[in-house]
C-alpha cells in the first residue's frame, strides 16, 4: 500500500483472509476503517470480539449458538424425528430462511476432501452418530453441496447411516424457481433431468 505501516498492512491482510475479499477490496475496507470515526472503528473490533467469544458450537447439532443447546435444538415444536445434515452453519441458515423445514439440523463443519487432509475424523460425525443412536431420529436428509466433495460426503453418510437401518435422503438439485432454463448451466440441467419426478 502507499504508506509504509506494518499495522495497516496487518489490517489489510486480515481483511484479505475473509471470503470473497481480494487485495483491492481489502485495501478499500482498511482505508474505510481508518477514515471512519474512532468509536465506530473500535465498535467493529468490539463487535467481532464479543460475537466471537459468546458464540460456540451447540453440543447437540454443532451449529453456532449463543445458548447451548441452540434455539432449534431447544424448540419443543420442531420435529425431532428428522435431521438435516449440512456442511456449514450457512447451509442451516439458508434452509431456515426458506421457512418450510421443521426438523433438526446437524452441522459437519466441512466435507470429505483428502487433498486438503480432511477425512471423517475432521468432521463432526461422532456427535451425529451418537444422536442417531439415541433412537428418536428416523430420517436423515443430507444437504451437503452439489460439489464432488459434497457428493462424496453424502455417499459416505448414506453408508454409515444406512447401516443403522435409518432412512437417508438427498436433497434434489435442479433449476432455480422462477429462473428460465436458458440460465441454468449444462451440469445443473442434466442433473435436474436425472432427478425428474412423475407428474
Amino acid at each position: 500500500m502507499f504508506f509504509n505501516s506494518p499495522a495497516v498492512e496487518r489490517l489489510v491482510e486480515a481483511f484479505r483472509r475473509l471470503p470473497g475479499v481480494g487485495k483491492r477490496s481489502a485495501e478499500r475496507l482498511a482505508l474505510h476503517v481508518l477514515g471512519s470515526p474512532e468509536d465506530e472503528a473500535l465498535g467493529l473490533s468490539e463487535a467481532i470480539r464479543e460475537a466471537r467469544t459468546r458464540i460456540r458450537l451447540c453440543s447437540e447439532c454443532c451449529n453456532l449458538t449463543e445458548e447451548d443447546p441452540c434455539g432449534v435444538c431447544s424448540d419443543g415444536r420442531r420435529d425431532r424425528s428428522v435431521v438435516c445434515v449440512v456442511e456449514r452453519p450457512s447451509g442451516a441458515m439458508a434452509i431456515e430462511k426458506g421457512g418450510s423445514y421443521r426438523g433438526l439440523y446437524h452441522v459437519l463443519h466441512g466435507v470429505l476432501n483428502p487433498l486438503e487432509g480432511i477425512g471423517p475424523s475432521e468432521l463432526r460425525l461422532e456427535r451425529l452418530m451418537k444422536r442417531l443412536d439415541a433412537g428418536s431420529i428416523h430420517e436423515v436428509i443430507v444437504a451437503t453441496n452439489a460439489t464432488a466433495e459434497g457428493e462424496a460426503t453424502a455417499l459416505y453418510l448414506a453408508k454409515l447411516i444406512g447401516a443403522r437401518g435409518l432412512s437417508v435422503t438427498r436433497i434434489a438439485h435442479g433449476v432455480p424457481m422462477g429462473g428460465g432454463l436458458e440460465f441454468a448451466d449444462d451440469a445443473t440441467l442434466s442433473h435436474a433431468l436425472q432427478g425428474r419426478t412423475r407428474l
Partner: protein
Amino acid sequence: MRLLSLHCRAFRSLSETEFAPGPRLNIIHGGNAQGKTTVLEAILYAATSKSHRTNLDTELPQYGAGAFHVRIQAQRGGHGVSIEAHWLNGTKRFKVNGIPQTRLSDVLGRVNVVFFSPEDIELVKGGAASRRRFLDMEISQIHPGYLHALQQYRLALRQRNELLRADRPDPDLLAVWDVQLAEHGAAIIRLRGDYVAELSRRATEAYARIAQAEPLTLVYQPDVLPAEDLGAVLAKMQASDIKRRATQRGPHRDDLDILIAERPARSHASQGQQKTAALAVKLAELELVNARAGEYPVLMLDEVLAELDAHRAEHLLDAIPLEVQCILTTTEQQRRPGRFESDCAYFRIEGGRLEEEE
C-alpha cells in the same frame, strides 16, 4: 468461412503487416525465421485468443514493445465478422464486430480455424497422453457436458489417489469416490467412443486420398469397456490399487490407436507416413466441423510439404475440398501448375514483410 484480411502490429517479428488471402489456396513462402509461422499464429490468436506455441502472452509483443494488435476480418455464411485483439502491458482485450467482450470464451467459435503445425506430429509419435489431450480438446469444443465430466473425473481421481497414498486407506472412503469416477468416467468413455467413430471414417478417407496406398485406421482403445462396467472394475481393483497406491484402471488410461497398414504408426511408420497420418486427422477434423456447422473452417498448414514426397504433396493439395480456404507456408518457392493454378494466390515474406506475388 473465409478470411478476408489480417492486420497486425508489433506481433512478434511482424511490425506492421497486412495480409489479404484469396478464397482458395494461399501459399506463403520465405526463408527460415522470416515470419511465416508468425502470420498463422496471429490468425490463430485472434480466432481463439491463444497461441499454439506458448501460453505466455508476454512472449508475443515485438521485442521492446509494450503492446500488440491483431485484427482479422472474415466472412461467414454471407455475414461479416471482425475480431480485434489488443494486448497492452499484460492485459488482453478482445472486440467482436467492434463490441468489447468480457469473456474470452465468447470469442471462440466466431471464426473457425483448423491449424496444422509440425508439432502436431506428436499426436502420432508421442505417448498416449498426447492423444488423450487431443481427444479432450476436440470433444470439449463440441460437447459442453464433456468438459464438466472431465473436470469432475479428474478431481475425483486426484482425491482417490490422495487417499491411496495413505498407509491404510479405508475401503468405504475409497468407494465414495468410485461412484463419481464411475459416473463421470462412463460419460467420458461414451463420448470419446462416439467422437472417434465420427473421426475415424473421415481420417481413413483423407489418408487414402493423400497416400493412395496403405490404409489408416483410428481405433479408440478404452481402458474399460463397456463404459457402465467402470464402477465394477474399480471395485474389483480396490485391493490391488491399495497395494500399488494408485488408481490403475479408468479412462485416464485410454489410448487412441493410430494404425497404418494395421501396425501402430507410432513405432512402425516412416516420418512421411506419420506426418500424413497427423494431417489426415486434421482433415478429418475439418470435415467434422463442416458436418456440424455447415461451413468449413479456414485451414492453416504450417510447413506441411516438408518430408512429403512430390506425390503426397500433390495429393494433399488435391485432398482439400474446393470450398476450403487454405493458407499454407513453405520454405521453397512452389508453384502449382495445371488446372488449379487460377485458384492459387502466392505470397512472399521476408523479415516480417509480406507481399503478394504475381
